[in-house]
């Protein structure tokens, strides 16, 4: 189960999207999140879908892998869809079965909102799949740079993020290891009564917490031992470079936005 997760996972490859500057990717994702809300009819949503799939295709990440990894998200999306079907009571009834009625507005909203949700997840997944975590935080630090003048702890924030991201795979590995160790002691995580399965979380979570605290302490010691003293005067090995592709991609998103504004109703 764990191995199929794609959140926060980076798939190295050589594609246009991989080569983009993390800053431009971050800006595009951020803008896209806003742009999604402009769409309100079939044409505009269609344009969004085309754009997102185009990005996915350009990233060269295997589709099967991406959609396989989003299985859990699909459950959430289906749930959202059903909520809208059941709870929205506007417009003409299009389907009726006893007490159960589906309204046109419910179906419409259900489809659009699940689609919106799906596109947001997909575009952010493309970002994390094609950008190394360290590049994302570098990009973020650079984008937030101006806030330093307002005494905002930009470097600290970026550091916190990169540490958090860095330890996602480690934590997953650890979880897997402890799950195996406890399974060997007779805990059943994936079968048996629900009550037992809920209780099975305890022998998993406690060791995870213990080792996380230990690891945090070790990391702090290691950083101090290497003379870490904040971001002042830091030089970088990896320099961020804004290239023509980045400008082009931003313009593409701009074109999409204009398209959406024209065709929305």
């Amino acid at each position, binding site marked *: 189960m764990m*191995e*199929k997760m794609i959140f926060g996972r980076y*798939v190295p*490859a050589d594609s246009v999207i991989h080569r983009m500057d993390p800053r431009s990717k971050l800006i595009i994702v951020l803008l896209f999140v806003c742009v999604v809300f402009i769409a309100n009819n079939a044409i505009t949503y269609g344009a969004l879908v085309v754009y997102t799939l185009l990005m996915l295709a350009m990233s060269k*990440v*295997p589709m*099967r*892998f991406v959609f*396989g*990894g989003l299985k859990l998200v699909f459950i959430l999306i289906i749930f959202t869809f059903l909520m809208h079907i059941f709870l929205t009571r506007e417009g003409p009834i299009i389907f009726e079965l006893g007490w159960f009625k589906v309204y046109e507005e419910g179906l419409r909203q259900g489809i659009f909102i699940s689609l919106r949700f799906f596109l947001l997840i997909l575009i952010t997944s493309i970002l994390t799949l094609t950008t190394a975590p360290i590049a994302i935080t570098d990009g973020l630090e650079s984008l937030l740079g101006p806030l330093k003048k307002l005494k905002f702890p930009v470097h600290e924030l970026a550091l916190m993020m990169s540490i958090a991201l860095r330890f996602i795979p480690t934590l997953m590995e*650890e979880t897997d*290891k*402890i799950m*195996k*160790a*406890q*399974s*060997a*002691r*007779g*805990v*059943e995580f994936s*079968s048996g009564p629900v009550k037992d399965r809920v209780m099975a979380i*305890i*022998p998993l979570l*406690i*060791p995870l917490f*213990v*080792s996380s605290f230990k690891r945090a302490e070790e990391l702090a010691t290691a950083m101090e031992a290497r003379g870490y003293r904040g971001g002042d005067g830091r030089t970088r090995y990896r320099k961020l470079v804004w290239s023509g592709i980045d400008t082009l991609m931003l313009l593409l998103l701009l074109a999409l936005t204009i398209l959406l504004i024209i065709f929305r109703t």
Partner: protein
Amino acid sequence: MDISLKNVEYRYQVNTPFERLAIQDVSIDIPSGTFLALIGHTGSGKSTVLQHLNALLKPTAGEVVIGERTITSEKKQKGLKAIRQKVAIVFQFPEHQLFEETVEKDICFGPMNFGVNEGEAKRRAHEAIKQVGLDESILQKSPFDLSGGQMRRVAIAGVLAMHPDVIVLDEPTAGLDPRGRKEIMDMFYQLHKERNLSTILVTHSMEDASRYADKIAIMHKGEVYKVGTPLDIFSDPEQLIKMGLDVPEVVKFQQKLEKTFGYKFAKTCLTIEEISQEMPRFLKRGEA
């Protein structure tokens, strides 16, 4: 309980860009009562092999026969709990699995999961804590107040209390001091003899492999390179060294002696005891 692996292959993360072949065509027979040592370079697939021994991993090809059960890549397996009670694994750094409020509760956790009642589980906890060389007074302490070495022993006690037929050890003494190492390994060996267990030991210590095992399997790049008695295995040091492994110090010592003196011992000695027995004869031959 007999365990046998037949042409087992395992791939991690099948159908993802991260797919990786971990082991292939692994066939090992482990009849009841065997002490098998699994040696190999880091990343040779030892840990993957041992997770097949109690069905924590399901082979992607081939089959694993554990007692009466056959585990293949097909379909979801049910009732694996029965296997896990018979085949217990002590993972690397088992102290990471401790979670209960007291040592006693933690040791009872395994047996009680397998349906042992509380009274019996507590009795086993007392028995197991003595087996691993700790005082019974430790049972009421929190496992998180113990030293690293003590935690390791408590975790091992938790596995012993399950009363398995087969015990799988993944570098059980890594990071312990020399005395602790010897005590723990001797304890496992004694249990192996007394309860007629099968023991599978994954180790980097050639000394341990030669001292305790009746059979040694060498893993190399995900495949079984060779299976044999310690004598077979360590008689061919060049091959081992080529694979990033080593031979016991005693064997190296013997080789150096043979080179210096220009003639051979009657046999390859694997332990200090053996070589000290052979030494007078070896030296006498020199005088002759």
